[in-house]
């Protein structure tokens, strides 16, 4: 049978058809964190139900952790309460927890892959919308809410409707200074923030095949910003090489058997898709968001649209965004003064992201009016970066070098914007108030573009900035 990876994984994990017509789907890996799980554990307790498969559940702490002083108890008492609740829930139910002492703590979507927990052909659920990140490995991975976290804890399964599959083929070579982040921002601009509702996105084409796992994770991570609950890349040699030797990946002959099964789950040539989209990689330039949703972006050398430039149904959104951002229609994005630069988040805080940002700032200094911080995605990435001396590159350039966590992507710890500050950010959402100040403004871009903006003090084109090599 010729099928897509989505269909194969769906079929292999189907438990049964439920009376209402939905599918009961087995969940191979359930990732949990401190924000969306405590209420789920309480619901289980109230019903006298145990965690059914603690060995298929993995916890870490990421959203609320302070990134500066991580000594316990945290000075932030609410954060302390939330971590204490996670520790108690994990202890009582036998769920492994990668905490701050483990050396393996980090953003849940960074550590799953890094530890080899995330593998092709799996179903993965987590109470966080960026669970789509894990699709980079050829897993079917999606975000769920707390009641569904309860259901997975109780039954290791979910009631789901199947998704349609849209193949997005990205062909050709990316120009220097153009990154995976620019590709996904372009895809979201083309298809819209709700274009993916009802779909899983399959990212294909030679530009995707040439990407590292880090880059594929950046692409899959922001599937949800395009409305697609899941996004994936078919497993190939790059995937298998990444997994070899990882802590929770199989080893020895078992690895070879696993690799054969992983490959067998890839979409077959000739599989049928519900939709097909083609993107020419060579036409993509660095992108920057200017508005209040991730579809509102322009190439760095473009000007902001006027409400009259867009289809009638988008006019109100464009007018609202220009008003909130305090930007004028037709103004260039280049030259926009920034106050804060943030390199971090599950989208772009892996080692290769930090290397690209460091390459831009090496020997330079952050502009005097800019506060800049680098928040690695995990403790392991932080340690690896320090072994390469990246921490010194950043601190000598005037960046703050922090502990691992979600930090200023959503500002659930002390890292947040103030007032109407503008932040050049490598994260994934530019929603109103997202970075912790109700009036704060976020411009999304690649980590290299953030680094260049930090040094220049304003939005610049990273292609003019460096890349002599």
């Amino acid at each position: 049978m010729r099928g897509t990876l989505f269909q194969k994984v769906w079929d292999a994990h189907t438990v049964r058809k439920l009376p209402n017509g939905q599918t009961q789907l087995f969940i191979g890996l359930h990732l949990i964190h401190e924000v969306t799980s405590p209420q789920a554990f309480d619901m289980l307790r109230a019903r006298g139900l145990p965690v059914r498969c603690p060995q298929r559940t993995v916890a870490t702490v990421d959203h609320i952790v302070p990134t500066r002083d991580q000594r316990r108890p945290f000075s932030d008492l609410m954060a302390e309460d939330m971590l204490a609740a996670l520790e108690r829930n994990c202890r009582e139910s036998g769920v492994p927890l990668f905490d701050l002492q483990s050396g393996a703590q980090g953003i849940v979507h960074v550590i799953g892959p890094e530890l080899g927990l995330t593998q092709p052909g799996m179903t993965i659920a987590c109470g966080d919308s960026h669970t789509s990140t894990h699709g980079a490995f050829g897993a079917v991975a999606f975000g769920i809410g707390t009641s569904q976290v309860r259901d997975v804890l109780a039954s290791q399964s979910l009631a789901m409707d199947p998704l349609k599959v849209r193949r997005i083929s990205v062909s050709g070579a990316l120009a220097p200074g153009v990154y995976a982040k620019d590709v996904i921002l372009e895809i979201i601009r083309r298809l819209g923030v709700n274009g993916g509702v009802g779909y899983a996105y399959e990212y294909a084409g030679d530009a995707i095949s040439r990407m590292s796992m880090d880059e594929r994770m950046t692409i899959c991570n922001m599937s949800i910003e395009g409305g697609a609950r899941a996004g994936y890349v078919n497993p190939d040699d790059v995937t298998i090489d990444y997994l070899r030797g990882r802590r929770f990946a199989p080893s020895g002959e078992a690895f070879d058997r696993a690799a054969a099964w992983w490959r067998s789950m890839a979409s077959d040539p000739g599989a049928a898709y519900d939709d097909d989209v083609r993107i020419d990689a060579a036409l993509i330039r660095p992108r920057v968001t200017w508005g209040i949703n991730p579809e509102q972006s322009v190439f760095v050398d473009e000007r902001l649209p006027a409400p009259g430039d867009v289809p009638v149904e988008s006019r109100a959104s464009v007018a609202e965004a220009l008003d909130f951002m305090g930007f004028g229609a037709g103004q260039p994005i280049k030259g926009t003064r920034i106050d804060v630069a943030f390199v971090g988040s599950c989208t772009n805080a892996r080692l290769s992201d930090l290397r690209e940002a460091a390459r831009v700032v090496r020997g330079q200094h952050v502009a005097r009016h800019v506060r800049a911080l680098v928040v690695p995605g995990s403790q392991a990435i932080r340690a690896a970066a320090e072994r390469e001396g990246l921490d010194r590159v950043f601190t000598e350039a005037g960046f703050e070098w922090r502990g691992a966590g979600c930090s200023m992507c959503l500002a659930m710890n002390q890292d947040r914007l103030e007032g109407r500050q503008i932040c050049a950010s490598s994260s994934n959402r530019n929603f109103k108030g997202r970075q912790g100040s109700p009036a704060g403004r976020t411009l999304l871009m690649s980590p290299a573009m953030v680094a260049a903006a930090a040094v220049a003090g304003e939005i610049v084109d990273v292609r003019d900035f460096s890349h002599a090599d």
Partner: protein
Amino acid sequence: MPIERITRIEGTGLPLRGNNIDTDRIIPARFLRSVTFEGLENHLFEDDVAQATERGTPHPIADDKYRTASILVVNGNFGCGSSREHAPQAIRRKGFRAVVGESFSEIFFGNSVAMGMPCLTAAPADIQRLQGAIDAEPSLPIVVDLEAQRVRCGGWEMAASLPAAARESFLDGSWDGTALLLDRFEEVERTASRLPYVAGW
């Protein structure tokens, strides 16, 4: 869990206009710093409300004339963004028992089903007409009928649908799915045992 069938919801409406209203706006992340959902209703749309008040254009959520509304009427791609169930929880705890809109993000929709708050989809022109009708008469009685998949108000009515499985779950009271998922756990185990990564390669 006692079975609660949800077949129709009667009440008054609150028109909340705008496309792509994300869950960060519904409930900003700083209010997620708690191990319970209690009190979330006090912060529903907090930043939007404050900004609207500052401009002198009262936000409908803070407008007294909608104080007892129980049906939220929204536009396109409502609830996009973060998977936080805190968003539909805040809406439910504020007293809303159904949401009617042009379209919903999938995760928001799924979360709402799982907590027993139906989200129905209707044509944009019908939604706008309904919002206008509520503007004109905030006390207008509205009936959301899941069985007939209709919304009735005043002298007119409109089609408002929801996916068959979700509709079925509300009508037969199985929207809280935990018991059903545990009903034949041996089948979950059988499916798992056929997966090489569970079986141990």
